[in-house]
Structures are given as C-alpha cells and as structure tokens.
C-alpha cells in the first residue's frame, strides 16, 4: 500500500488516534460513525485521513445507521469500521446481530465509559464486557480485544481487522477511556511489515458457489456485491444457499456453525500475556487500563518475595476457559480488578470457582485502581 495509509515512523499520539491509524494500516477504507465521548477522536481522525487514502468517511444520523452502513460497505467489498461508546454501543446491538447472522466482516471500536445510561461520559468504565458478549439477541460467537497501551491500540486494531476478515464477522475492540485518551509513543512499522489478512474469496464459479457453506474452519468464502455471484444476504435463518428457511433443522445447522466457528477456533484466537506464573499461588487477572496498575502491583509484590503471577487478557472474548481450568488446580487465589462490579470475575468464577478463591476488586467507574489498591489485596492473600 503506498497511498499514505501507513504513517511509518515514531509518533506521540493518543489511543483513539492510534486506533484510527491501526485501522488505516490494516486497509480500512470505510468509516461510518456518530460522535460520542470518549470515542469521537477516532471518527475525527478518520474523517481527516480517509479522503487522503482514497477511502470514505461518513457521519450517520445515529449509531444504528452507523453499524448498518459498515455492514453495507463490507458487502460492497470495503474494510469497514465504526467507533462508539456505551450509549452508542447499545444502539448498535440490533445490527451487530445482523452482522453475526450474515457473517459480515467489520470492526467495532467501543471506548468504554462508565454507565449505565449516560453515566460518566468523560470518564472510564469497563462495564460493557458482558454486553459485548451477549448484547444482541440470539446465539453467536464473539471476538473482543482489549488494548492496554497506545501501541496496542494500533497493533490490535490491525489484529481486529485480520480476525474479522478471517472469521467473517464483526470484531470488537473493547478499549476504555483511559487508554483511548492517554498519550504515549507509537511506532508504526513500514507498510510491508504489516501483516494483513483479506477475506477469502470463492474459487468456484457462480453456479457452483454455495455462499453460506462453511469450509474446514467453518467460515464460508465471501462473494461481495458486484462480483458476479449475486448472493442473497438475509438476517432470517437461511440455508447454505442463503435463502430463508424457517425450520429448526436449518436453524440448528446455521447457529451451531456461527457459534462453533469461534468456539472451535478459540485456541487460535485467544491472546494472553502471562508473567511470573511458574510458582504463583495468587494470580491477578486484568485487562485494558487496569492491567497497567495491576502489573505494577504484581511487580512490587514479586520484589517483596510474594508468589504472585499476572495474567493479562488481550482478548477478553473468547474467554480463556481452558487456561483458567488448568491454572485452577495450582493457583489458590485469583484477584480480578476491573472497572465494573465483577464481569470478568464472573467468568473466572465459572471456570475456577470450584477450586480457587475468586477475589473481585471492582470499581464502579470514573477512575482506575491505583497500584496500591491492587497491591493491598495481593498482600492480604499472598502472605
């Protein structure tokens, strides 16, 4: 790509802007959005940069329309993205479901603020974790990535695009106000060093192509509008040809595949960062901005000889169930600091609650745990 999309070099930027740059580096050429704090800077950056790189930016009338427009654009062959925060994320739920049902690659960035409702518009939250997993009605598999630095906002947005193209579905960046607004050094590599995955195209002729037949990885190749395949795309339960079929047997095949394409590929999708785990009796699990405080707390505890490990969820969904079940045998206590009343803690409880103590360290929003907040809890359980 030599259209100026990749701003190779060293920068000092905030997380929202790094996210926009990551999208462009991933080949994003369509953005639709609606202004909302603390995600507006993503849209503003895209509105300025996309025309220069030959892409399209459009401000829609609301988030329902934004989500719908990126799905439409994706069927027009674009790599499409939107960004929002709590209230807008709620409005997007309807068409997230359509994106899942129609297997439409796109990326949705949620810079989390504190809710419910309008909550604390300018301040941090992490309480959309479960909404990201279960927010739209019906069953489907979810990929949600939680960057913890400006560099990761760039790198993981590329990853989100790659995963969305590979698994043909909306992928979420579940970031937060602190990471979105924080300024750090960002290194953008040369364009040729950026790994991009593009959606698989059908190799068969139009009369042989079965548009919703999953291949080995359960993902069907995608023919977009105007490519000669004239596919029918519907949110109704559809057979492999894409045609509505109102029978439980078709529903069974379709929805199982939609969930399984993530569930059975989970090991390939999940990304964790683990440190000091060898002999850890206590493990802190954190993600996003809180993981920065958590890391400092864990390092301090280690320096004092406490047997503490750290597990950072880079992907929040799919949840690392297998890994936690494994750990639960030898780890005695899991400490989960997060800016909500125990959403990831709930998952940890599910995976490990029978064999380990689960300690939830929740803040209801508006601020981040200090390292001391977390250190004090570690000290209490690691003595």
């Amino acid at each position, binding site marked *: 790509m030599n259209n100026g999309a990749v701003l190779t070099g060293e920068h000092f930027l905030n997380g929202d802007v790094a996210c926009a740059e990551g999208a462009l580096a991933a080949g994003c*050429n*369509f953005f*639709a959005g609606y202004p909302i704090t603390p995600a507006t800077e993503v849209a503003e950056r895209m509105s*300025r940069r996309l*025309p*220069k790189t*030959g892409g*399209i930016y*459009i401000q*829609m*009338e*609301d988030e*329902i*329309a934004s989500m*719908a*427009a*990126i*799905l*439409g*654009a*994706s*069927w*027009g*062959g*674009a790599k*499409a993205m939107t960004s929002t925060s709590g209230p807008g994320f709620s409005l997007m739920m*309807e*068409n997230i479901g*359509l994106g899942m049902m129609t297997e439409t690659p796109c990326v949705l960035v949620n810079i989390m603020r504190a809710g419910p409702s309008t909550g604390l518009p300018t301040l941090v939250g992490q309480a959309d974790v479960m909404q990201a997993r279960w927010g739209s009605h019906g069953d489907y598999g979810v990929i949600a990535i939680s960057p913890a630095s400006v560099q990761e906002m760039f790198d993981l947005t590329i990853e989100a695009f790659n995963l969305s193209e590979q698994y043909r579905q909306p992928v979420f960046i579940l970031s937060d106000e602190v990471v979105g607004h924080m300024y750090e050094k960002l290194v953008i590599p040369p364009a040729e060093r950026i790994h991009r995955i593009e959606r698989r195209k059908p190799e068969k002729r139009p009369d042989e192509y079965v548009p919703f037949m999953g291949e080995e990885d359960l993902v069907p190749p995608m023919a977009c*509008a*105007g*490519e*000669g395949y*004239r*596919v*029918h*795309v*519907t*949110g*109704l339960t559809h057979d492999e*040809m894409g*045609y*509505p079929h109102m029978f439980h047997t078709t529903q069974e095949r379709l929805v199982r595949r939609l969930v399984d394409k993530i569930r059975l590929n989970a090991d390939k999708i999940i990304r964790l960062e683990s440190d000091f785990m060898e002999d850890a009796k206590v493990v802190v699990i954190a993600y996003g901005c809180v993981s920065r405080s958590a890391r400092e707390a864990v390092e301090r505890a280690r320096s004092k000889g406490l047997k503490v490990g750290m597990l950072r969820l880079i992907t929040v969904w799919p949840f690392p169930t297998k890994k936690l079940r494994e750990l639960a045998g030898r780890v005695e206590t899991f400490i989960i600091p997060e800016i909500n009343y125990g959403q990831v803690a709930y998952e940890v409880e599910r995976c490990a609650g029978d064999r380990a103590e689960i300690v939830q360290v929740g803040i209801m929003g508006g601020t981040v745990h200090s390292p001391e907040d977390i250190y004090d809890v570690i000290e209490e359980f690691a003595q």
Partner: protein
Amino acid sequence: MSQGVTKLIHKYLRHDKKFPHVWCPGCGNGIVLGALIRAIDRIGLEKDEIVLASGIGCSGRMPVYVDFNTLHTTHGRALTFATGIKLAKPSLTVIAIMGDGDATAIGGNHFIHAARRNLNLTAIIINNQIYGMTGGQSSPTTPYGSYATTAPYGLIEHAFSIAELAVTAGAPFVARGTVYHVETLEDLVKKAILKRGFAVVEVISNCHVQYGRRNNMGDPVTMMKWMRDHAIRVEKASSMSIDDMEGKFTIGVLADVEKPIYTEEYQKIREGAIKGRPTGGPGHG
C-alpha cells in the same frame, strides 16, 4: 402468460429459489415487483450491477426472488445498508425497497436523512397504509379514523404523506404512483432509477388482507377502484381547488431538481485532501 412476461421472469427471477412466494393472493407487492423489473429491463441494467436492499415486512421479502445482489436487512434500516454499499461501490445501482412502517416509523429518521444527504440511490416505498407482515397494526400512514388490530376503536393519529415528507426533507426526485396505474408506476420507477441523486417513489398499494378487510375494502378489486377514484395526476391537481382535492392524493412527479450528489462532492474532497488542502469541501476551500 405472454411470451414477454415469461422472458422477463426467466431473466430476472432466481431459478434456484422455490416459489410460491410468501405474499397473499392479490397483494400489490407483486405489481410493484413487476414494475421494477420492467423498468430495469427497459433501462438495460446488468443484473450484476444492481443491488436491491430491503428492510423487514411483506415488502421486505421482495429481494429474495430476484437475481440481483440482494440484502434483506433489519426493520427500517434498508437505506442505511444501501448507503454503505453505494459508498463502497458507487458503480452499483442501489435500490432500497421498504414498507410504510419500515420507511417512516422505525426507519423514519434514516429516511429523512437519506433524503437530505443525497446519495445516488433509489427508494421505493410500498405504502399499504398498514403493518402487513405483523398482521394489521396501524402504521404512520394509516388514515385517521380507520381500523387496525391496534386501533380497534378507530385511529386517532394523523397520517404522514410520504412523498410530501420526502420533498420537504430535500429529496431531489420524488414521485407517487399506485398499483392500479401500472404503466405510470413503471415509468416513475424508471425515472427514479435514472435520476442522478436520491430518488423516492411512494407506491400506494393494497393490503386488502390486513387493511382492506377491516375498513370495508376486503378485496383487491375494491381497493384498486379506490385508488382509481382518489388519485389525481399532479398536472391536473394544480388546477383543482382545495375542496375538490379533499380526500384525494396526487400521482406523478412531485419534485425533480438538481442537487450536488454526495459521492461526487466527496470525490472533490478527496482530490483536495490528496493535494494537501487540510479541510474544505464545496464553497469552503
């Protein structure tokens, strides 16, 4: 069936899609589909170049039968998908088909903004004055005083006039037809597709099953006669008194003006941005 019709069916309907369709016998939706296909055939568009996007409702089921690129989306949102696909691939001819509830209740906001924004899209709204698919509830175009399953004592709300709404919202081309005036309808749809800019065709249609039955017009013929007797061509309406127009509606082209088109304006912004002009756009360079 005439040879011409058979040829059109063979060319434009999906062969691998099993009929019969979901619509009730005598439903106006089929007439709209016929007019659309004939208009497309007359223009000579390639099937690969056409996108037909719909929302949810009886009208929303239309795309599955035709051999175009077809999207059956969510209730009220057809235009927003159409917007995305048109922007991503401006060379495609993108047509959205909607019901009256679809376009002016749940999708009302999208509708007025699409009209204001002016992408080169065609919006066909089948106005049968009722929620057909869900079984006869009142819609924003159900007439004052008529009956619906959710207006068992008569409706006390006032109806939108869709075409007039589109004109006010800024759509550069607006027309209204009916399923009775079939040749006019075909002509209006053709004009709308050929129009450069956002083009709206409101089609007054019959849902005798869910609307007519509850309002003394229980069969398609009675409803068609009602259309015949109440539709006034715009040319004629201009010379009629307000009293004479009472209870009537106009058919024909209500608005046809030129306005800058979004994709073309955006292209100018792109060219400016690439040359290094930081902001800008039409008139604000």
